[in-house]
């Protein structure tokens, strides 16, 4: 990638809590090219949302702090810019859609006014113009009878329609990068399919770069180009999505794949990962996945693994495991 739109380098985010300091994001690096979609995957607490918050400049202060790394957007480091300037980017260049659309919409403002507000404040549009733009966008994201519904309040919309409103707001100022954090997790499968189809359309139409955050490996498979798996705040495996899913080289990714019942797979006993996701306050030495890992040996306790090229696709596929080649051999053997 010669000129990535976004380049995150060694990003580290810590939270100070009453019980002590935790490293929610631990030296995370990734690049994203114009028009490319990256899926960030992993279980609860792995650091997906905090990574997104850091890119958007939304890490809650003062408890949370970016303590290291760089976030280079279009050539300049967002972390060293004055906050006012970073805020200006939000919406125009970068935009985000959250999991829970109701809590991010203002309940006492009409939906159309909330979308239109962006045009009025950021583009100096007139009231009538903003309203027209709002209807246009609502129509674009598939809200039926947009011209009529523009004056409704958020509670008059279903969960799926609210998520469309959020997407409409995120798209209003034509951002170059859209981050969607679990955009369909609270929705029915039928509505989830609608939203994912919409995101795929938008991606194709506008060459918009996207970061899709999910705990569901299946939901992103049809849309994302690349996948990045996180565990305990660290990137454990990354590469082209298909490579990561087919020639898996990290035991955690492999465990996740074996935990999912497949709609068209054989109905055999699941092979869950033993144990539970780690407590960031009490991480084991070496590899954080070690206590749950069938491949773990002495080296895993003494030396934290770093991301290294996976031999099948050394240019793009990397995994952080001392036993990556064994895992890969087992995965390939079935």
């Amino acid at each position: 990638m010669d000129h990535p739109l976004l380049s995150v380098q060694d990003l580290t985010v810590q939270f100070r809590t009453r019980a002590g300091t935790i490293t929610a994001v631990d030296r995370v690096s990734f690049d994203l090219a114009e028009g490319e979609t990256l899926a960030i995957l992993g279980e609860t607490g792995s650091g997906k949302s905090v990574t997104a918050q850091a890119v958007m400049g939304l890490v809650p202060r003062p408890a949370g702090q970016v303590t290291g790394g760089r976030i280079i957007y279009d050539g300049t480091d967002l972390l060293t810019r004055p906050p006012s300037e970073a805020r200006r980017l939000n919406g125009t260049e970068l935009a985000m859609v959250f999991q829970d659309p109701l809590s991010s919409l203002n309940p006492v403002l009409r939906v159309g006014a909330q979308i239109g507000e962006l045009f009025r404040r950021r583009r100096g549009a007139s009231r009538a113009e903003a309203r027209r733009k709002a209807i246009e966008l609502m129509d674009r994201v598939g809200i039926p009878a947009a011209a009529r519904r523009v004056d409704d309040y958020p509670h008059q919309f279903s969960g799926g329609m609210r998520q469309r409103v959020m997407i409409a707001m995120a798209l209003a100022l034509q951002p170059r990068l859209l981050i969607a954090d679990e955009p369909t997790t609270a929705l029915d499968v039928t509505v989830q399919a609608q939203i994912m189809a919409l995101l795929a359309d938008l991606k194709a139409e506008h060459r918009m770069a996207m970061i899709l955050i999910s705990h569901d490996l299946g939901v992103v498979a049809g849309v994302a180009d690349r996948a990045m798996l996180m565990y305990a705040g660290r990137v454990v495996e990354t590469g082209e999505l298909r490579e990561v899913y087919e020639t898996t080289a990290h035991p955690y990714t492999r465990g996740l794949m074996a935990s999912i019942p497949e709609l068209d797979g054989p109905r055999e006993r699941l092979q869950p990962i033993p144990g539970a996701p780690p407590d960031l306050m009490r991480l084991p030495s070496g590899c954080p996945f070690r206590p749950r890992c069938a491949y773990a040996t002495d080296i895993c306790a003494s030396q934290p693994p770093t991301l290294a090229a996976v031999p099948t696709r050394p240019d793009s596929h990397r995994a952080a495991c001392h036993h990556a080649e064994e895992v890969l051999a087992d995965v390939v053997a079935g």
Partner: protein
Amino acid sequence: MSSPAEPLLSVRDLHTSFPIHSALLRRKVGEVHAVSGVSFDLPAGRTLGLVGESGSGKTTLARTVIGLERPRSGQVLFDGRDLVTLSGRRRGAKAAELRRIRRQIQMIFQDPYASLNPRLTVRQIISEAWMINPGVVPRHRWTAEVNDLLARVGLNPDHADRYPHQFSGGQRQRIGIARALALRPRLVICDEAVSALDVSVQAQVLNLLVDLQADLGLSYLFIAHDLSVVRHISNQVAVMYLGKLVETGTTDQIFTAPVHPYTQALLSAVPVTRPWAAPPRQQIILTGDIPSPVSPPSGCRFRTRCWKAQPRCASEEPVLAHRLGDHPSACHFPELPAQPQPAAVGAR
């Protein structure tokens, strides 16, 4: 759903609705028809999966079966006894019989944390059931029995005196399962019991449910919105839409030869993990949302979102009956999925 065995649970034409009151007019102004004429059988030792979109009435159906909601009409036959007629009495022999039967039906909820009293230890949470239902386990056996139950669900009995907040989400769900098992139920209703869990932990709990069924001969009514999970655990599946069952059958029948357009749409919406390796499939993207159960569409309730709807669908309600293939469906125009579906469906 035919089975040679006598059904353990048999639901007959069940109707449950909620009144809508107007604060302004101080009277009932309408009704939410949450469950509108549902019938099914669940044989002993088997699992019936219940699927359908949010608001289709799954939880209301479950709550009516365990007696938390009173149906407007219909029967809930457990072992041949109708719980609806039994529940008319507060005291006496019938009330005692009802309590004895109800004990055998337990429920596991989606949110393990909300359903566990934070001020009680795990031991107290589990023993509470025996306090309320004396005679199931004698008091001198409580300690041993709690330990057995915890071990059975994969928790360390040494942790029995800890509080719910000291456990992870997956462990809390195991506590919920242990509590449900305390009264030695024969039927366990799992309402989105694994939905909130991370996939690796969800797989552990699914395996546990499978093992418990094999060991204890439990029957499950398994409610979930994740169709892959339902397919994994169920012997039979019922598909619910706006208060009614639209298709029922064995898991294979529903997943490989669904004939109702709603079932086909639901299945086609399930994301596949390896789209490049999956057989090509027609994705049906349904338009709009599930209509309000206050004033459901006339005739077929699915017709407002159906790409095959004809005038007949508005005037005549399709009942759940054998129409095409070897299992019941409720569509005037059932078709096997091999039939090509119009591409226009994809329009949002």
